C-alpha cells in the first residue's frame, strides 16, 4: 500500500516535470522518425517485400523496440543530474520506499516511451501500415516491459558510477551489440548461422521477433508468449537489482 502510494507520488512529480519540458519527448522521437521517413523506404526492394506495408510490418516493430532499449538505457543521465543536485540524498533521509524512488521514475519513462511509440505508429499508418488493435496493445505491453527494464538498469548503473563520463561509453558499449544482435534494423533471417546462434542468446532478439509476430497478426505464434515472458522476467530482475542499488547504504 505504502509502495503504491509512494510510487504514485514520485511518478506524479516526475510526470509534472516532464510536462513542464515536453520537448524531450519529441527530441527522443526525432531519430526514429528520421529512420521511418528516410531509411524505411529503402526496405521494400531490399527485403524483397511484396508491398510497402509488408516492409513496414517488419521494420516498425524493430524500430519501436530500438526506441524502448535506447530510450531506457539513457535515462540514467537524468538521475545523475538529480544525484548532483542532492535530490536523491534528500529522498533517502525520508522513510519513503526505496523501490518507489525507482519505480516512480521508471514508470515515467514507460509512459514517455508509449507516447513516442504512438507517434511512430500513427506516422507509420500514413505508409499503409495496418495492425489489429489488440495485437498492437500487446506489442505496447512488450515495449513497456523493455523500457521498464532498460531504464531500471540504467538507473542502477548511474547510482554505481555516479558520472556521465562513465555512463555514456558504458551504455553505448552495451547497446550497440545488443542492437545489432537483435535483428532490429534487418531481420536475422538473413544472418549466417553463427550469427543467428549468438542472437538466440540475446533476449532482445526474442522481443523483436515477438513484436514482429504481433504486427504480422500472428497472435498464436509461439514467439509472442516467449518474447513477453522473457521481457517480463528480465524487467522484474532489472527492477529488483536497481532497487537494491537505491536501497544500498541506506537500510
Amino acid at each position: 500500500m505504502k509502495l503504491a502510494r509512494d510510487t504514485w507520488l514520485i511518478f506524479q512529480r516526475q510526470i509534472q516535470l516532464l510536462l513542464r519540458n515536453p520537448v524531450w519527448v519529441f527530441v527522443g522521437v526525432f531519430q526514429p522518425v528520421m529512420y521511418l521517413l528516410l531509411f524505411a523506404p529503402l526496405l521494400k526492394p531490399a527485403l524483397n517485400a511484396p508491398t510497402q506495408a509488408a516492409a513496414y510490418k517488419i521494420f516498425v516493430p524493430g524500430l519501436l523496440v530500438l526506441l524502448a532499449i535506447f530510450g531506457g538505457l539513457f535515462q540514467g543521465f537524468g538521475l545523475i543530474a538529480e544525484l548532483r543536485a542532492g535530490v536523491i540524498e534528500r529522498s533517502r533521509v525520508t522513510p519513503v520506499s526505496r523501490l518507489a524512488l525507482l519505480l516512480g521514475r521508471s514508470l515515467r519513462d514507460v509512459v514517455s516511451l508509449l507516447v513516442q511509440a504512438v507517434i511512430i505508429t500513427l506516422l507509420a499508418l500514413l505508409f499503409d501500415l495496418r495492425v489489429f488493435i489488440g495485437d498492437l496493445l500487446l506489442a505496447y505491453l512488450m515495449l513497456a516491459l523493455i523500457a521498464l527494464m532498460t531504464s531500471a538498469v540504467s538507473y542502477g548503473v548511474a547510482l554505481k558510477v555516479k558520472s556521465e563520463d562513465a555512463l555514456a561509453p558504458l551504455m553505448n558499449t552495451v547497446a550497440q551489440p545488443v542492437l545489432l544482435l537483435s535483428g532490429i534494423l534487418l531481420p536475422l533471417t538473413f544472418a549466417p548461422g553463427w550469427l543467428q546462434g549468438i542472437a538466440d542468446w540475446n533476449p532482445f532478439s526474442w522481443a523483436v521477433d515477438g513484436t514482429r509476430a504481433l504486427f504480422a497478426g500472428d497472435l498464436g505464434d509461439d514467439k509472442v508468449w516467449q518474447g513477453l515472458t522473457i521481457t517480463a522476467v528480465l524487467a522484474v530482475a532489472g527492477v529488483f537489482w536497481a532497487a537494491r542499488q537505491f536501497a544500498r547504504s541506506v537500510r
Partner: protein
Amino acid sequence: MIETRGLRKSFRSRAGRETKTVDAVRGVDLQVAEGEIFGFLGPNGAGKTTTLRMLATLIEPDGGEATIAGADLRKDPAEVRRRIGYVAQGGSTWDESTAREELVLHARMYGISKAEAHRRATRALDAFQLTEYADRKCKTYSGGQRRRVEIALGIIHEPKIVFLDEPTTGLDPQSRAHMWDEIRRLRAEGMTVFITTHYLDEADALCDRIAIMDHGEVVAEGTPAELKREISGDVVLVGLDVAGTPQAAQLLDGEEFVKKLETADEGGLRLYVDEGATAIPQILRRLDSAGLTLSSIELHRPSLDDVFLTKTGRSLRES
C-alpha cells in the same frame, strides 16, 4: 537527545594500485541535550560531515552505537529517519521545481496527507519569508533564498532534531546573519539543532555547545565560554622579524609570567600569559634591553582558534 559511543567509519580509497584505508571518523563520543544548538567545529576533512551522515542514516557506521531522539541508529534506522531532519551541504532542491512543490513533495514523502502537506508548505514559506517566491522555479533563487528553502524542507515534518551541514557556507554576510536568526528560531520552537561549521565566529556566536573535531576525533567539547576558559589567560602576539625571533624566544621562555610560548614560522611570537595588561610592559622591557625592535604587539582575549591551536598545534585559519 543524541548519544554516541565510539562511532567509527573508514573509507577505502585507491591511489593507483595501492588501496589505502582512510579512517575518517575514529571513535566519536557525543552527548547532545534537548533544545540546544550543538556545533561541530573543525577544518575541512576533519570528519564532521561523515559523522553527520552517519547520524542521519545516510552511511552505515563501521562500529560504535548511537541513540538519536530515543531510536537506536544501528537497529532501527527507519525510526531514526522519521524523527530527524537533515539538510545537506551541497543543496537539495531541483532547478525546475518551485519551492512550494518541493515542500509539498517532501512532506508527502514522510507520509503526510496531501491537504496537510499543502498547509505545512504554506506555513513554512511564510515562516522562512519565501511566500513571494513560492511559485517561482528554484533556479531563479539567490543563494540565501535557496538555503532557506532547503532548511524548510529539512523541518517540514516537524522533527525533534535537525542536522544542518555547513548551513552558512557560501552565503554573503547578510544572508548569513539571517540564517543564524532562522536557526535560533528553530531552537526557540523546541528543536534540537546540530550544525557543522568551519567558521569560528559561527561556532562562538550561534552554538550553545560545541565539539572541536580534528582528524576524525573530538579533541574538545564544551560551551564556547568553557573552552576558552580552559586556555585561561590572554594571548600576546609579538611582531618580530625572522632573525630576531629565536633570540626573543630564548629571552622570554624562562620568564615566570609566560605560561606557553610558540614561535611563528614567518617570525614573531605567540605568548600565553595570565594577564595581558601586566605582561606587556615586562615583555617590552626585556626585548628593549636586549636591543630587539618589535614591529607590533597585540593583546588577544582567547578565541576558539586558540582553543583549536592548543588542542591540535595548528590554527584553524591555516588548515
